[in-house]
């Protein structure tokens, strides 16, 4: 009656084996390591690089541990953190002599010490969340209306030049919110303009309406085009963040889109959190505009006159005021690179800019018409603008390569180049959520979680063994297997483990024991009612199964709700909770029954089972002891 066929034992053994295998990596601990990755897509990480790194380490007198060359990174393990730090300096000096021309990113990291054969099986330790590792977590919100407004602004400029080319006279173009309004005196011109727009600007939707004697043509972005603008703005921002984070030298950063307009950035293991916040927090957008040089503008610059119509006033980094036109010529989208360098003729510090094709064309047109005039490069942070530099245009500049020089030191040239490179965001971003955990707190949290689970498990196991004797021992072993399988599944799935996740582990163990208590109590009851031990075991497991299923499903519903609606650490809790329920159903019923069947199943004339006191109400005192202990032939 209580026999498991061999295939069921085979399943149990396989589950145990796989579970142990995938849990093993968690016990090996972590080694300090240095990670070298490519900062640009054109740079390769290959065996030649490995050779260079080995050379650099030998020269510095450091013997590296294991070296792992992967697709785009080289990881080198060391024994102590001192060695790690020295090695990082040595490698950085050898590979990237000047901080600005760095083709490689050299970062500190912690790598698991698990041996090669385990890694070959894809067995890795659990992925620790930020509250267990330390690090920084940001959620950034992209200001989408701003992106659309900017697009409208640039379209207004394009429209103005298009109408001028076709000699269609209008009475004024201005941007109203996110749509563009053009006024015409005659209907014929309005209709011609409408046809022009439909030809050259397929993204715009036009409507005409009479307005105080004139015809007003309203052009707005089609919803599809609007959505595309938003998607591109988000993608552009993610790329920019990638570049900035590479400069921080963080290993395994996480930069992901969340929803339609949010970006999540996670930087695990970051030691200098203030610097990370500083660099990421500097969300800026870049604009190039012409400087207004009329006499009114000059007066406004000096502060003696009002700002003329169609211009805005900004301050340069040294405090001087600059009056710039409102129309934007180029944005950061068109700037592909900015590097500090030296002027070939005067050997002064200079910044070399590279523009994309569209930017190059626009720039050539503008510089052709404006030799001798000043052009301002503006950086906008949180809506406030600052003039980075406002050089004089000396000649027409084609080909997209621009040099800005004069009145700056090498340090300033470096800073400007960094700002221009990092500042090319398509739309401004705001930090709406932030979490910073220091590294020492992370290690403490792991210890706390581990202790809670361990001591709780010990207490429950002790009680079960005392109360239910051998059956209690089987239940405790099943609980241990539950924990093993849970850790193995988490490691296999590389699900994120957080501190609430470890709490969920403890809770799962507390709830999983319920199934075993149900079974054991049922067996006791059957024995109390006079069933034979084999029949009691059978009945106990059969009857309890339906109840166990129902109660686990209801707990699973709660877990799924948390998974669906939770975020951050709560999601870590929900994942462990749900997985734990599933593993508990396997271990508490299937596995524990396997153990019981192994021990008792073969005995045909079983007299009693060790399940503690089976107290019978009608018998006299003292007979309750007859069932204690084993009774094997």
């Amino acid at each position, binding site marked *: 009656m209580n026999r498991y066929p061999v295939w069921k034992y085979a399943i149990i053994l396989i589950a145990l084996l796989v579970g142990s295998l995938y849990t093993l990596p968690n016990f090996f601990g972590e080694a300090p390591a240095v990670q070298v990755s490519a900062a640009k897509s054109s740079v390769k990480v290959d065996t030649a690089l490995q050779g260079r790194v080995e050379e650099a380490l030998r020269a510095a007198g450091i013997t590296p541990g294991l070296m792992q060359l992967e697709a785009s990174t080289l990881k080198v393990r060391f024994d102590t953190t001192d060695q790690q730090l020295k090695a990082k300096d040595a490698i950085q000096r050898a590979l990237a002599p000047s901080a600005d021309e760095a083709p490689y990113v050299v970062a500190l990291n912690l790598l698991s010490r698990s041996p090669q054969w385990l890694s070959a099986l894809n067995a890795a330790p659990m992925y620790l969340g930020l509250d267990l590792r330390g690090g920084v977590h940001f959620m950034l919100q992209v200001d989408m209306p701003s992106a659309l407004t900017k697009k409208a602004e640039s379209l207004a400029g394009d429209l103005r030049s298009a109408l001028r080319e076709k000699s269609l006279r209008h009475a004024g173009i201005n941007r109203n919110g996110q749509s563009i309004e053009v006024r015409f005196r005659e209907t014929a011109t309005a209709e011609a303009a409408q046809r022009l727009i439909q030809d050259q600007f397929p993204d715009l939707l036009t409507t005409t309406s009479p307005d105080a004697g004139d015809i007003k043509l309203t052009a707005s972005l089609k919803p599809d085009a609007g959505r595309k603008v938003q998607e591109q703005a988000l993608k552009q921002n993610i790329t920019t963040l990638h570049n900035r984070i590479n400069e921080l030298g963080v290993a395994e950063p996480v930069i992901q889109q969340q929803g339609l307009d949010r970006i999540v950035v996670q930087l695990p293991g970051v030691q200098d959190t203030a610097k990370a916040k500083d660099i990421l927090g500097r969300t800026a957008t870049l604009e190039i505009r012409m400087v207004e040089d009329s006499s009114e503008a000059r007066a406004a610059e000096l502060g003696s006159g009002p700002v003329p119509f169609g211009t805005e006033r900004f301050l340069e980094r040294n405090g001087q005021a600059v009056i710039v036109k409102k129309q934007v010529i180029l944005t950061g989208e068109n700037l592909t690179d900015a590097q500090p360098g030296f002027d070939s003729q005067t050997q002064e510090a200079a910044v070399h800019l590279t523009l994309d094709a569209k930017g190059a064309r626009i720039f050539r047109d503008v510089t052709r018409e404006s030799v001798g005039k000043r052009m301002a490069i503006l950086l906008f942070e949180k809506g406030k603008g600052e003039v980075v530099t406002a050089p004089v245009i000396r000649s027409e500049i084609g080909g997209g390569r621009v040099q800005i020089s004069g009145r700056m030191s090498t340090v300033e040239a470096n800073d400007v180049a960094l700002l221009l490179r990092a500042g090319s965001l398509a739309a401004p971003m705001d930090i*709406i959520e932030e*979490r910073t955990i220091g590294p020492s707190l992370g290690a403490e949290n792991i210890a706390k979680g581990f202790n809670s689970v361990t001591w709780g498990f010990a207490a429950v196991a002790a009680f079960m063994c005392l109360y239910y004797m051998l059956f209690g021992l089987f239940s405790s072993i099943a609980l241990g297997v539950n924990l093993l399988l849970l850790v193995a599944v988490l490691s296999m799935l590389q699900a994120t483990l957080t501190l*609430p996740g470890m709490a969920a582990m403890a809770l799962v163990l507390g709830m999983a024991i319920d199934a075993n208590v149900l079974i054991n*109590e049922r067996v006791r009851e059957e024995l109390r009612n006079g069933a034979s031990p084999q029949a009691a075991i059978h009945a106990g497991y059969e009857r309890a199964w*339906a109840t166990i299923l129902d*109660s686990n499903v*209801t707990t699973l519903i709660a877990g799924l709700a948390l998974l669906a609606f939770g975020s*951050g*650490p709560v999601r870590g809790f929900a994942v462990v909770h749900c997985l734990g329920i599933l593993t508990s159903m396997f271990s508490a019923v299937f596995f524990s029954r396997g153990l019981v069947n192994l021990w008792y199943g073969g005995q045909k004339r079983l007299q009693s089972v060790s399940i503690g006191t089976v107290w019978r109400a009608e018998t006299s005192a003292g007979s*309750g002891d007859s069932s204690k202990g084993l009774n094997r032939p």
Partner: protein
Amino acid sequence: MEFFKIRRDIPFMRNALAFNAVSLITFLAVVFFLFSRGLHLSVEFTGGTLMEVAYSQPADLTQARNAIAALGYADVQVQNFGTARDVLIRLPAVKGVSSAQQSEKVLGALKQADASAELRRTEFVGPQVGDELAADGLKALAFVVVGIVLYLAFRFEWKFAVAAIIANLHDVIIILGFFAFFQWEFSLPVLAAVLAVLGYSVNESVVIFDRIRENFRRFRKMDTVGIIDNAITSTISRTIITHGCTQLMVLSMLLFGGATLYYFALALTIGILFGIYSSVFVAAAIAMWLGIRREDLIKNVKKEGDPDDPNAGAVV
């Protein structure tokens, strides 16, 4: 070892009215506290900045408070967190100032007062994210309630589903009441604990209902009250032992989990203790009052023939 030497079915349902009266009174008290004192919501729900600062010796809270007030923050909460050396500072959200700047300025002021101040972690939640988290929490609660009602209606019968959910929402409200009364911090992990308790609490009711169904099948002649009493008496040992074991795990969390998990473990403890009361007494009593009968659970009673019929089995 056997803790539950029970000779006869304990007549629980005789006192059903008293039990339900007690739970109704506690429910009303809790609602009163929720409205009068309100929940002490954490930064995650209200928005704002949270900083945890560690000192090398027990911190002087008044000094820290003054240092921060000097920066212009009128209403700042400064309290000990875990040990006497750890301080938790809660700053309200200020427009135009990023949390990075806020936390740095505050840390600077604290360091001036006591140079050993060290920042262990900061959390900043923008107000719109806070609102969203609160809304998500409520949606999760609604999802769980609906899910459980549907599942129980499917497995047992609608009366059982309604009884179970009323009894167990009662648990949830009691936890919220404790948190409102003592003004303990209500954070996201506590919300997770509350939802976990709801799922766990329904377990108890399910075990009893399952036993009731089995008793309906087994004891054809017993009336509903007797069946319920028997069901509760038979399962009381399992209920108390399971709750005891779960409480052992939660106790371990309370002792070793540190300050971060403290309120989470506290919410679980309250839920586990009151869960026994609500699931055992309240759920069964409400089910009884809703009028559960044998026919609700066993569909084919008539076809099997009435065993009380003296002619049953006789074939001529």
